[in-house]
């Protein structure tokens, strides 16, 4: 009899649940694909925009950093120092070049082990490797080690010349070469060279005897030389390295260069890097620093370089920012900061809200090369060319109506792009199309079932536990259940404690299904949890009302509003873990919550009219 009495309410709630869920399911299916694409695009755009904002904010910090350096007294003091020739810098440069060229020649011989010396002589690639410029007037050459005759020369008239000629130019060095040549495979030293004007100039020479020979048993040696006078730096200043280390905000860089107006790098924080050279020398024309130095000279403003790899063996890219330094309208020189990209990589690699396959990466606008690591590090930076429609749209600033584009792997992805103006980069954000469409369908079905079950459960609970039979206005309750009696006897203090406990328990039950309570979406959950506590107090307090009609309305209304808030907490957690979901999922709960609001209002009205 009791079941029969409640059956109609149970059926009513189940039918209502099916009806509401069905209506929204219909709407969702009708515009499912379009809706999913739109919401996913919106989410992807938001992520991309947020990352771009973070990168731009970091770039602005760097601008402030270089601005501080430009205006600092230390920079101006160092740029005003007289410039002197530094023998040691010429030595370091020539030594380094000798080792690099020797390695290159050795490797080339290894590639062609069956080639004769004559064949190597005729090979233009080999000639290019052996004869390289060093500094302004230095160069490298390769000689037949046994014959001591140079067969690869920058100046043709020296071809086939014996290096005994050095004797007339520098007897000291010649003696060193003659004595050591069969003892050591690595000889170096300074010597004087009389120029065409009859003036003696200091030179430095480095000879390396190569280990491997050609197939016809010819042994080779690489010789590198340079004019010491080409390398200039500022006059020795006591502890120049400390100059920029006093201010901690100006210390977060890989290197710092000071360049005088004619292009000579007169100071380097790291003494092993390009110090003493001139950026206008032809040999330096392809340096990243040279390119932005020329640009800064031309535009007279702060310029950012593209990302670049500093030298062989380096795997982490850097970028440079250069700015002119003035003192009372007089150009003193330029200050250049070399920065690493670690912080930018942290931003681009952040996979939050990007699902399983989504990733963000940077592409250089000029070279179209990948300049930041991919999410799963599948391809190398500065190796992988990103010649995709998404990258091209970014370069041409085109708004592509088709959001589904092929990525660098040939997969169909939902793609978005953001141009970063300084430096000229593109931030591409892409997520696999299959992931969006498949998972969306699955979660849609799961949530629809969950909504139906929850609604039905609450309906059945209310129908059986609470006497929902509508009573006439002002009619006192005839049958008071034990549960109702127990609740109505609770004091306000106990009601508040009970409400808080129930809300907290709910929070700890729900969050482990997502990211755990420690990583819950607190920012979104707190307002809902707060409202739930208040509504629970209202619900329990409703049992105390003597007027049955208003009691029922308040109980119904508050339980519907509580239901809405509880659903919202689940959806917030889902959003936080898996990314935004369609607004359709919010609608059933919200609608029920609004109906509850009306019921609360009418209950309130009835109660207050008494």
């Amino acid at each position, binding site marked *: 009899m009791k079941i029969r009495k409640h059956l109609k309410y149970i059926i009513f709630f189940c039918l209502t649940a099916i009806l509401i869920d069905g209506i929204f399911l219909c*709407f*969702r299916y009708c*515009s499912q694909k*379009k*809706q999913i694409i*739109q*919401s996913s695009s919106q989410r992807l755009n938001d992520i991309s925009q947020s990352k771009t904002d973070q990168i731009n904010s970091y770039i602005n910090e760097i601008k402030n950093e270089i601005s501080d350096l430009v205006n600092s007294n230390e920079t101006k003091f160092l740029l005003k120092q007289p410039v002197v020739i530094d023998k040691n810098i010429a030595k370091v440069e020539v030594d380094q070049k000798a080792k690099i060229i020797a390695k290159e020649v050795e490797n080339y011989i290894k590639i062609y082990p069956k080639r004769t010396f004559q064949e190597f002589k005729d090979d233009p690639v080999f000639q290019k490797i052996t004869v390289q410029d060093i500094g302004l007037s230095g160069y490298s050459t390769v000689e037949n080690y046994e014959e001591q005759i140079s067969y690869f020369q920058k100046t043709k008239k020296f071809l086939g010349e014996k290096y005994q000629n050095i004797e007339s130019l520098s007897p000291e060095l010649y003696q060193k070469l003659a004595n050591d040549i069969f003892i050591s495979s690595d000889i170096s030293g300074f010597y004087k060279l009389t120029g065409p004007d009859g003036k003696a100039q200091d030179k430095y020479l480095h000879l390396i005897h190569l280990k491997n020979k050609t197939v016809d048993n010819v042994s080779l040696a690489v010789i590198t030389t340079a004019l010491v006078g080409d390398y200039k730096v500022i006059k020795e200043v006591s502890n120049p390295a400390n100059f920029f280390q006093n201010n901690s905000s100006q210390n977060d860089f890989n290197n710092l260069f000071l360049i005088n107006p004619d292009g000579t790098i007169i100071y380097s924080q790291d003494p092993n890097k390009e110090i003493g050279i001139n950026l206008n020398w032809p040999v330096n024309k392809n340096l990243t620093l040279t390119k932005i130095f020329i640009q800064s000279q031309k535009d007279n403003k702060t310029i950012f370089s593209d990302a670049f790899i500093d030298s062989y063996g380096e795997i982490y890219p850097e970028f440079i920012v250069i700015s002119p330094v003035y003192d009372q309208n007089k150009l003193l020189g330029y200050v250049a900061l070399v920065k690493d990209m670690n912080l930018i990589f942290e931003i681009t690699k952040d996979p939050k809200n990007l699902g399983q396959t989504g990733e963000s990466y940077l592409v250089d606008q000029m070279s179209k090369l990948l300049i930041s690591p991919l999410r799963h590090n599948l391809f190398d930076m500065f190796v992988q060319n990103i010649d995709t429609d998404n990258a091209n749209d970014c370069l041409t600033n085109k708004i592509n109506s088709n959001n589904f584009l092929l990525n660098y792997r040939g997969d169909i992805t939902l793609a978005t792009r953001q141009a970063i103006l300084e430096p000229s980069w593109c931030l591409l954000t892409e997520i696999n199309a299959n992931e969006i469409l498949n998972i969306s369908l699955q979660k849609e079905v799961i949530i629809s079932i969950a909504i139906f079950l929850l609604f039905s459960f609450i309906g059945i609970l209310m129908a059986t536990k609470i006497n929902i039979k509508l009573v006439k206005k002002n009619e006192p309750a005839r049958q008071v259940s034990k549960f109702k009696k127990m609740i109505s006897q609770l004091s*306000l203090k106990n009601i508040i404690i009970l409400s808080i406990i129930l809300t907290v328990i709910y929070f700890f039950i729900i969050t482990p299904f997502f990211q755990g309570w420690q990583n819950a979406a607190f*920012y*979104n959950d*707190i*307002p*809902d949890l*707060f*409202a739930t*506590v*208040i*509504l629970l*107090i*209202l619900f329990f*307090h409703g049992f*105390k*009302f*003597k*007027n049955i009609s208003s009691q029922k309305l*308040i109980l119904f209304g508050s339980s519907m*509003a509580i239901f809405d808030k509880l659903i919202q907490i689940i959806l917030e957690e889902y959003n936080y873990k898996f990314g935004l979901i*369609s*607004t*359709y999922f*919010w*609608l059933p709960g*919200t*609608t029920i919550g*609004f109906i509850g*609001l*009306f019921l*609360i*209002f009418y209950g*309130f*009205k009835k*109660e*207050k*009219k*008494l």
Partner: protein
Amino acid sequence: MMPLANLLAVIIIIITAVGLLWAVSIEMLKSKNIRLFMPFFILSIWLCISAALNFYGVYDPQIWFVVESFWGIWFLWILIILLKNKNV
């Protein structure tokens, strides 16, 4: 073009807001007790603000944190009025 789901959400919020505002206003005039129904009146205005934010696509988490938090405050206001009720 606004997604259909968002449009539906805006329509539902507006219907609720207008309905509540209408019902509350009538009660206010009938009972001549404006203070009593003030939390519902403000709640309906609050709903209009929510609808406007949805309509213009403002989904800034900080703004919504404030909007959602005030729901609890309006309910608390209603609860305080009911707690003063002597008919319990």
